[in-house]
C-alpha cells in the first residue's frame, strides 16, 4: 500500500471497551482503506456491534485510537461522526413510524429554525436514493409504519446514503432484505467503491461476506483475530477463525476474563449424564415462526436438555416465546403431553404455566427481578398461590423451601431480607430459577440464563440444571454462548432466518459445526427436516 493510503481511510488500533465486568472489546484493530468494501465478522458477543457503535459515535472507547483520513477522532455523538462524513445504518431499524418516508430519510438534517433542505431537494434526493436501492415505486409521503420490514430497512439505508458520506457502516443492514434487494444494495456499494469511498459491513450471511467484501476482519471475544483479503478466504477458514479452533495452541479463554472464562474444555464440570430421556412431554407440531419460514416439528422428552442456538434475530427467541405462550405462532401448535397419554394444547402464558411450562426471561432486570424487594420475597412470589390459607400466607413453609433451595444452590446472600438488587448477577439468577424450580416445573424454558454470570456460579448453575434434568424436568436452554450449549445440552437446535436448520446431537458436534449451522451452512441439515 502506498503512503498516500496510510494517511487515508480508517485506522483503529488497540480499541477496548468494557461494560461492567464484561469486556466487549479487547484491544481490537481494524483498517479500512479508501475504495474498499470491508466486512467485519464474528459470533454473537464478539464485539462487532460495540466496535460499530464506537465508530459511529454512540459509545466512547475506554482506550485505543481511531484515525480517520489522517485525523485522530474524538467522537462525542453520532452527529459528530456524521460531521466527519461517516454514516451508519444500525442493526435495529430506527424509524419514526408516524413520519413519512421522506421525513424519515431526512431525519436529523433540519436546523432549529429552518429546514436543512428544501422540500423539493429532499424529494429529489430521497427519490434518487430509493431508486438506487430498487424502490422506485415507493410513495415518499407514505407514513413509515405502513411499510414492510424490508422497505423500512432500505429506508434507513437511504437515510445514510443522502448524507455526504465517505465511510458507510452497515451493521446487519441486509437482514430483512431478499436476494434481489440485496443485489441492488451491493451494486450501489460497488459503485461507491469505484468512487473511492469506503464501506464497512457486518453480516450473518457468509455468501455476502465472501461475495461482496474485498477484505475480511474476524473478531473473537473482542479482539481482532485476523484480517485477510476475501480472495484468500474460504468459508471454513472464516468459521474456524470465528470459533477459535483454527489456531494451533489457542491459549485464550483462560485469561480473557468475563463471559469467556470457561473454555477449558466444553465437557468440564463433568460426568455427562448418559442420555436416558424419559417419555416425551412437549410436542411442537408444524410451528411456523414467520410467514416465510419452515414449519418446526419436534418433541421434548422428560429429562432432556435441548439447546437453542442461532445468530441474533434468527427466530430462536420467537421460538422460546411461542413455547411459553408469550407469542402466538404464525401457524402450528404446541401440545403438553400428560403422563397417561393425554395431551393439551398450550395456549397463552398463564395456560402454559398451568401445564407446568415455566419461563425464565432473558432480561433479568426488566423482566425478572423485583429490585427493591427482598431476596426472599423475590423467591417466594410464585409460591403464594399455593402457600396461603384464605389469602393469609404460610410464611414458615415458604421460608423452609427457600432455605432448602439457598443451601442446595449455594445461594450467597448477606441477608435474604435485603433487596435483591444488591446480589450479584449469578445469585440473582439463582433466585429467579428457584422461583420456578420450587413450583416443580415439567418444562423449564430458560432464555440465555448465564449471561453476565461469573465462572464459578456458571459451574454451579450447570450442576443445578443437570440435577433438574435428572429429576425429569425437560429444559429448553437458549444461549448465545456456544460453549455453554456444548457443555450442558443433549441436542442443539440451530435457527437461521426463522427456521430450524439443524438438530445437532451435542456428543457428536463441535463448535465449528454449530457456527456453520448458525450461518446457514447446509452441510449439517441431517435430521433437521424430519
Amino acid at each position, binding site marked *: *500500500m502506498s503512503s498516500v*493510503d*496510510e494517511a487515508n481511510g480508517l*485506522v483503529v*488500533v*488497540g480499541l*477496548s471497551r468494557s461494560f461492567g*465486568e464484561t469486556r466487549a472489546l*479487547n*484491544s481490537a*484493530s*481494524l*483498517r479500512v482503506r479508501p475504495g474498499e468494501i470491508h466486512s467485519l465478522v464474528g459470533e454473537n458477543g464478539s464485539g462487532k456491534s460495540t466496535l460499530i457503535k464506537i465508530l459511529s459515535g454512540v459509545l466512547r472507547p475506554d482506550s485505543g485510537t481511531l484515525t480517520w483520513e489522517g485525523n485522530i477522532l474524538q467522537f462525542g455523538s453520532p452527529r459528530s461522526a456524521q460531521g466527519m462524513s461517516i454514516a451508519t445504518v444500525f442493526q435495529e431499524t430506527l424509524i419514526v413510524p408516524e413520519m413519512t418516508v421522506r421525513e424519515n430519510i431526512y431525519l436529523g438534517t433540519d436546523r432549529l429554525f429552518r429546514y436543512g433542505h428544501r422540500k423539493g431537494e429532499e424529494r429529489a434526493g430521497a427519490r434518487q436514493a430509493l431508486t438506487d436501492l430498487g424502490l422506485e415505486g415507493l410513495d415518499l409521503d407514505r407514513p413509515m409504519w405502513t411499510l414492510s420490514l424490508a422497505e423500512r430497512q432500505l429506508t434507513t439505508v437511504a437515510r445514510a446514503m443522502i448524507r455526504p458520506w465517505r465511510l458507510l457502516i452497515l451493521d446487519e443492514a441486509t437482514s430483512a432484505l431478499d436476494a434481489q434487494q440485496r443485489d441492488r444494495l451491493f451494486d450501489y456499494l460497488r459503485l461507491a467503491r469505484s468512487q473511492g469511498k469506503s464501506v464497512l459491513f457486518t453480516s450473518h450471511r457468509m455468501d455476502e461476506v465472501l461475495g461482496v467484501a474485498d*477484505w475480511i*476482519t474476524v473478531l473473537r*471475544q473482542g*479482539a*481482532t*483475530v*485476523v*484480517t*485477510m*483479503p476475501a480472495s*484468500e478466504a474460504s468459508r471454513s477458514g472464516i468459521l474456524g477463525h470465528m470459533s477459535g479452533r483454527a*489456531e494451533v495452541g*489457542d*491459549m*485464550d479463554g483462560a*485469561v*480473557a*476474563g468475563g463471559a469467556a472464562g470457561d473454555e477449558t474444555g466444553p465437557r468440564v464440570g463433568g460426568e455427562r449424564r448418559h442420555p436416558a430421556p424419559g417419555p416425551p412431554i412437549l410436542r411442537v407440531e408444524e410451528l411456523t415462526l414467520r410467514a416465510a419460514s419452515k414449519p418446526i416439528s419436534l418433541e421434548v422428552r422428560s429429562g432432556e436438555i435441548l439447546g437453542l442456538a442461532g445468530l441474533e434475530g434468527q427466530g430462536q427467541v420467537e421460538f422460546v416465546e411461542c413455547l411459553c405462550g408469550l407469542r402466538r405462532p404464525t401457524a402450528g401448535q404446541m401440545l403438553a403431553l400428560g403422563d397417561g397419554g393425554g395431551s393439551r394444547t398450550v395456549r397463552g*402464558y*398463564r395456560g402454559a*404455566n398451568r401445564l407446568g411450562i415455566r*419461563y425464565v*426471561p432473558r432480561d433479568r432486570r*426488566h*423482566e*425478572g*427481578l*423485583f*429490585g*427493591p*424487594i427482598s431476596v426472599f*420475597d423475590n423467591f*417466594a*412470589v*410464585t409460591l*403464594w*398461590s399455593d402457600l*396461603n390459607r384464605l*389469602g*393469609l*400466607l404460610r*410464611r414458615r413453609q415458604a421460608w423452609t423451601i427457600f432455605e432448602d433451595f439457598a443451601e442446595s444452590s449455594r445461594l450467597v446472600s448477606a441477608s435474604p431480607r*435485603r*433487596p435483591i*438488587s*444488591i446480589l450479584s448477577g449469578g445469585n440473582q439468577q439463582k433466585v429467579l430459577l428457584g*422461583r420456578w424450580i420450587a413450583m416443580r416445573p415439567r418444562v423449564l424454558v430458560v432464555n440465555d440464563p448465564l449471561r453476565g454470570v461469573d465462572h464459578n456460579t456458571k459451574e454451579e448453575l450447570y450442576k443445578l440444571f443437570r440435577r433438574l434434568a435428572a429429576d425429569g424436568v425437560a429444559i429448553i436452554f437458549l444461549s448465545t454462548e456456544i460453549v455453554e450449549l456444548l457443555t450442558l445440552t443433549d441436542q442443539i437446535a440451530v435457527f437461521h432466518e426463522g427456521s430450524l436448520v439443524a438438530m445437532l446431537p451435542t456428543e457428536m458436534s463441535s463448535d465449528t459445526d454449530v457456527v456453520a449451522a448458525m450461518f446457514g451452512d447446509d452441510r449439517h441439515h441431517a435430521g433437521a427436516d424430519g
Partner: protein
Amino acid sequence: MTDSSPVATTDGPPEQARAARQPDGRAANNVTAFVAANFTRALPYILVPVLYILSLIFIPGYFSKLSIISLLVLASLLGMASLGQTMTIIAGGIDLSIPSVIGLSDIIVTQLYYKHWSLPLIFLAIAGLAIVIGTISAVSSVVLHVHSLITSFGMSLVVSGVALEMSNGAVNGAVPGWLTSSVSAIGHTGPIPIPAIIIVWAVASVLAVAFLNLTRVGRETYALGANSVAARLAIVRSTWTLVVVFSISALCAAMVGVFFAGYSGIPDPTVGEPYFFLTITAVLIGGTSLLGGRGGYQRTVMGALIVAELTTLLVGVGFNASFQELALGILVIALTSTYGRELKVAAKI
C-alpha cells in the same frame, strides 16, 4: 499475507487482578454507608417526637390531653385517607379520586340521614359505591393500558359531578350525634375518653400493615409496583391486585367522608379537596416511593403524624395557611431526596 494490515494478533495483554479492591477501605465505607442508610430510613420515626418537642417548646400550654387528642384526630383523618393511597402507590399507581369520594360520601350521609334513611343501609350503599369506584379505576387502567393517574383522575371528575348534582346546593343535612362525637376532641368511645376515629385509625393501621405483609394480595402489591413486567411473568394477579387496592382506597376515602360529615354536620361536596395533595404528602414524607414497590403503611402513619404536627406547630406560632403549604412542600422535597439517596447507598453495600 496481509502486508500493511495492522492486525494479526489473537489477544490483548492479560490484565488480571484489576478488580482487586482494598478490603479495609471498603469495610470503613460500609459502616458509614450503613449508618447513613439506616438514618434516612429512620428519619420519619425521628421527626415525629422531634416535632412534638418543638411544639411543646414553641406553643405555650401545648402539653394537655385535649391538644394531643386534637392532633391525633387531625392525623387520623389524614391517616385514614392515606391508607389506600399508600397501597395504590406501592402497587405502582396513584389514586387521584380520594377527595371526590370523600365529598360524595359526605353528601350521601348528610342528605340521606336527613331524609331518615336507616344508617346501616346508608353505610352499605356508600361501601358498595366505593368498591364500584375503585374497581372502575383499576380495571380501566388495566384494560386501556393507561396509568391509574389518568383513570382515577377521570373517575374523580365523574364522582365530583355526581356529588355536586346530589347536593344540588342543599345546605340542610343531619348526622347522628355519635358520629359528631366520634371526631370531636372531647368525644368518648364507650367508656374510653378518646374519640372513636383515633381507635378506628389504630385498628385500621394494624390491619393495613398486616394486609401488606401477611397476605398474598399484599405481597403481590409490592411485586406489581416493583416491576409490572416481571410480575406478569411471575403470574402475579395484576388486575385483581389493583382492584383490591383501589377499592380499599375508595373505602377509606368514603369512611373519611363519613367522619367529615360528623365533623361539620352539613353537606359539602368540596370537603375533601385539601386531601388531593395531603394524602400524597403523607405517603411521600413517610418514605413510600412513588416509583412503587417500596415503603409501607407504618411509614405513612408517621407521615400523617408529621403533617398534623407541622401544621399544628405552624398555626401555633402564628403562620398562615399559605406558609404551611410552603413548609410542607419543602419537607417533601427534602425528605424524598434523602430517601432517594438511601436507595443508592444501600445498593452499594
